[in-house]
Structures are given as C-alpha cells and as structure tokens.
C-alpha cells in the first residue's frame, strides 16, 4: 500500500531528525516547569491537575507553541523534497502525488503526536510516583487533544508545502498560517463579520451565532473548547454541545481541506 509506504518512510525520516529530540526535551522542560509552579503548597495532598492544564499548559504550550511546532514539522514536507531532489526518488517509485501529500500528513502527524506524547508524559510520570493525588486520566486525555492540534497544523502546513514551488515560499506561507490562526484570528474574523453584515442579516442566523462559529472554527480555540469540555466531564454533553460539534467538525475540515487544495496545485505542476 503506497500511502502507508510513504507515511512510514516519512515517519522514520522525521523521528530521526535532531529537531524531534529538541521538541521532546522542550515539552518535557516546560511541562515540568509548570508542574513545579503549581506544586501542592503546605499540607495539601491534592495536585492541581486542572489548574496546571487550563492555566499554564493550555494557553502557553498548546495554543501558542504546538501550532508553531506543527507548522515547522510540516512546511518543508513537499517543498523541501522538491528543492533537494529527493522528491524525484519518491516519484520514481509507484506513488501517486496524492499518496505523497497524504502520506506526509500521516507520517509527520504521527511523528509530531509521538513527540507531544513523549514530551508531556515523561514529566507526568514523576507526578504519578510522588505522594500527591494527580489526576492522570485528565492529563493523559488532555495530551491527546494537544497531539490532535499538532496533527491539524501539520496538515495545514503540508498543504501549503505541496502548493508552493520552493522552500522559501512554503516558509512564508507557514508564517502566514501561524499569524492568521494564532495571532490575528479574532481581528480578521471580526473584520469579515463586519464586512458581511448585510449578507448575514439575510441568513437565518444571528450575528452572535456567526461569531461563535468563527471562534471555534479556529483549530486552537476548537481544541480548547473540546479539551475544557473533557476536563469538565462535559464532552459532547451539556450546554456547549453545539460549539463542541462545530469545533470537532472544523478540526476534521482543517485536517483534510488544506492538503486537498495543496494537492490540486501540486498535481498540475511540472516538477
């Protein structure tokens, strides 16, 4: 199976890169640092797992750093091989260009997920053995959400990489992706809503519904929505179920649409 062969090759290639070791170390270090900051004070035997995740790991690591890491892992997936000439090796073998693009999403997504899991869980092992009550289930579940967010950004970055003819343009696209999703999303969607005021008025939706949808349509907000639902024991139940469904659907969209669009361009190119 061609897709699996490409994914497997890319996974092996990516996990051997020095960057992976640095990532795991960085995640471990940050999670350890945050855990130290929220360590039980005095006689308290309860380790504040939820506080750790929602106040420190969430805003700093997950919504800020993981998108960046996903883009770094993905942006050179196709364009890098195109620049160096190893793409010729890949396309000399019986792989379609679709196999190449989606194989890379899978291979690099899996490598990044592995780095997130390893980086988060190594420090957690310490918390499990120390004599405090540490909510391991919440922590593990949250780590999975973090890994999913990483995969979504790998997919977006691989899509850009496939569409761009050179490594340099792919890098610029990657920076733009980070700026749009992490830094400017609220500003941009606010502008869009204002500009389309008339159009939205004609729809059977309130402005507020549109704003809420655009909010969770951002993968970082979407993941936060889902992760908080999970930590609160209200995943896909309770009053925010609509937002959660929208968020999950948009995560699937962001995983599939950018690679597909990138493939459309890549498939037509002379290499």
């Amino acid at each position: 199976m061609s897709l699996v062969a490409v994914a497997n090759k890319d996974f092996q290639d990516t996990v051997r890169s020095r960057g992976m070791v640095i990532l795991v170390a960085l995640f471990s270090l940050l999670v350890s640092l945050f855990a130290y900051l929220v360590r039980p004070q005095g006689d308290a035997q309860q380790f504040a797992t939820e506080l750790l995740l929602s106040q420190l790991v969430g805003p700093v690591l997950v919504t800020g750093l993981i998108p960046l890491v996903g883009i770094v892992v993905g942006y050179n997936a196709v364009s890098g091989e195109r620049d160096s000439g190893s793409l010729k090796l890949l396309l000399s073998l019986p792989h379609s260009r679709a196999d190449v693009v989606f194989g890379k999403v899978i291979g690099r997504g899996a490598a990044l997920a592995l780095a997130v899991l390893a980086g988060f869980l190594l420090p957690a092992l310490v918390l499990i053995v120390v004599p405090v009550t540490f909510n391991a289930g919440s922590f593990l579940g949250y780590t999975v959400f973090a890994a999913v967010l990483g995969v979504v950004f790998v997919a977006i970055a691989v899509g850009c990489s496939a569409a761009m003819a050179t490594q340099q343009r792919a890098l610029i696209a990657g920076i733009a992706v980070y700026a749009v999703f992490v830094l400017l999303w609220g500003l941009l969607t606010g502008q869009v809503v204002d500009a389309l005021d008339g159009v939205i008025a004609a729809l059977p939706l309130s402005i507020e519904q549109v704003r809420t949808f655009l909010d969770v349509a951002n993968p970082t907000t979407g993941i936060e929505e889902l992760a908080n639902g999970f930590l609160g024991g209200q995943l896909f139940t309770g009053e925010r179920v609509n937002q959660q469904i929208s968020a999950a659907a948009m995560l699937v969209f962001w995983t599939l649409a950018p690679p597909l669009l990138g493939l459309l361009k890549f498939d037509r190119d002379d290499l």
Partner: protein
Amino acid sequence: MTAIELRGVTKEFPGVTAVEDLDITVKEGEVYGFLGPNGAGKSTTINMLLDLVRPTEGTVTVLGRDAGEESVAIRQRTGVLPDGFSVYDRLSGRKHVEFAIESKGADADPETLLDRVGILDDADRKAGDYSKGMRQRLVLAMALVGEPDLLVLDEPSSGLDPAGAKDMREIVRAEADRGATVFFSSHVLGQVEAVCDRVGIMRQGELVAEDSIDGLREAVGGGETLEIDVDAATDEGIDAVRALDGVTDVARAGGSAGADAAGADTLVVSCVGGVKTAVIGALEDAGVTVRDFHTREASLEDLFLAYTEGDAPTRRESDETSETAGGSPESADESPESADESPESTDEVDA
C-alpha cells in the same frame, strides 16, 4: 510491443522550448542510449516518461500505457535512476532499499540488491554520509527492485569512478540479458558505445540522429585521418598525395611554419582506410622525408560533436593509434598541435 513511444512531443517552459516535435520508439528488450550535450532536452524527455513533467503537445506511451494517465502503473514496472536526485540523509542505505521494496510490493532481499551494486558493507550507514558514487549505486539498487521491465537511467555514470562506471555497464548488460528494456542518457560517449543497441542524439530539443553505433559511424563517413610529420611540406608533395585515390583532403596543419626549430611541418590527410602506405610512398617519391605519423579513426566522439555542433567531424585525441614510419623517428610521441585543430565543445547551459 514497444517499451517507449513518443509521438510529436513538444515541451515548452516559460520562455524556452525544451523539446520540440520529438518522435522516439524504443522496442522491448532494447538498450537505447540517449545522447546529447547538457541542455539538449534529455532530462526533460525522461521526466515526461515519468510524468514529472507534462508535454505541451504530443503523446508519451510507456510500456503500452499513457504516461500521464497511468503513471503509477508504469512506475510499478519501471526502475528509475533520476538525475539530480538527493537521498534521505538520515535513513540508512538498507532503509532506502526497503522503502523501494515496500513501495513496489516486491518480494526482494535488500542485501542481495545492495551486494549487487557493491555497497553491502555500508548498508547500515546513513545515506547522508555516502559519497556521490555510493549514492548513485544505492539508487541503482532501488531501481533494480522487483526486476523491472524498463530501466530508465538518467546520466547513470555521473559521480562514478571508472570502476563504478564499469560495474554500471555490466549491470545494464545483465538487465538487458534478463530481457529488460534499458533507456539511458549520457553526455559521455564511452558508456554508450559499449552497451547500446541503438543511440539517439539530441540537440537543442530535437533528435538529430538515431541509429546503431555502426550505422551512425558509417553515416558520418567513417574515414581515417593521417597526421604526418615531415621535414618540409612542399607543394609537390601535397599535390602528389592529393592525386591519390581515396584521399579526400590534404592540408598543412595551420600555424606550424617556424614553430619547429628543425623546420618540420605537419600534414593532415583525410582518406579512406588502407591508403596510408600509398600516402607515405607518394610523399617520399616527391622528396619529402616522413618522420612520424599518426592515424585516427573517426571516433564516436567525432560523431557526437559532428551532430551536436553541426560541423564536419572534428578530430580529437581519443582513439588515436600511433605508428612509427620507416627511418629513425626522433620524436615518436611528439605530435605538434595547433590551436585550430583541437575543437572545444561549447557547453550549453542546462535548461
């Protein structure tokens, strides 16, 4: 069945026509040498066979299938050594071959393949640490996976030392004996001459010649050139030689007057094979003392240059046979060269 068929293929890139109205047919089981200087359109043609580049016009058929529509099926039965590739630096040689085996769903042993190309001892080293020649061998091993029906080798000997180039030729021949069709490009003639059934010569995007090596040689004339060192090239001597049957041209090598303290001249005689004794005889009868002479057969190199530069065959130092004429030559090895008889090949920039 034909292995490769191009009909009226043109490929235009922005501002340049890389290949123009190209027709090539390669029969199954044939070893086809694809020649031409850099920038002649060889790699573009090969990239069209593999669907890396799509033709602007015309049809490309490989192993009976359309190169654009059924590329994956074609590559399933084709082994490729591309030009200007790079390996995956972090993966070992073994991993590379395993990846090719997995990709083709072939039942092959990586070690057998690595041994065949001579890098088994380095199988577990990272390919990023390989030399250029070893990378070339590694990718050849990947190309051989699954006994392909067609081998497409783009400049296979680049980066190889002479021993490596010889191994490459032996593998090409063995694959051809197995029944595989081999299509390989080169700008170095020695590699093609030894193994090819047929060659095609590209020049500026067009196929300017296509024949067997012998056929091409015949087409260009296939005569000999004698280079004769004499004490003084008198007009009588030159006229006497010119009068002989089989002699097509006689010239003084330009610029030789005064170049030699002993007053020696060099005559360049173009003729059919087997008249050199008559030429020497005629010169001596005319009172000219022959000191030394060299014979040159028209080499494939001459042929190549004749086609790619569009001149009459020019002479090169290759394929030279040096003979010593009667008498006592003082400088058998010395062959005075003048500037205008060593043609420089004009390098074209790769498109």
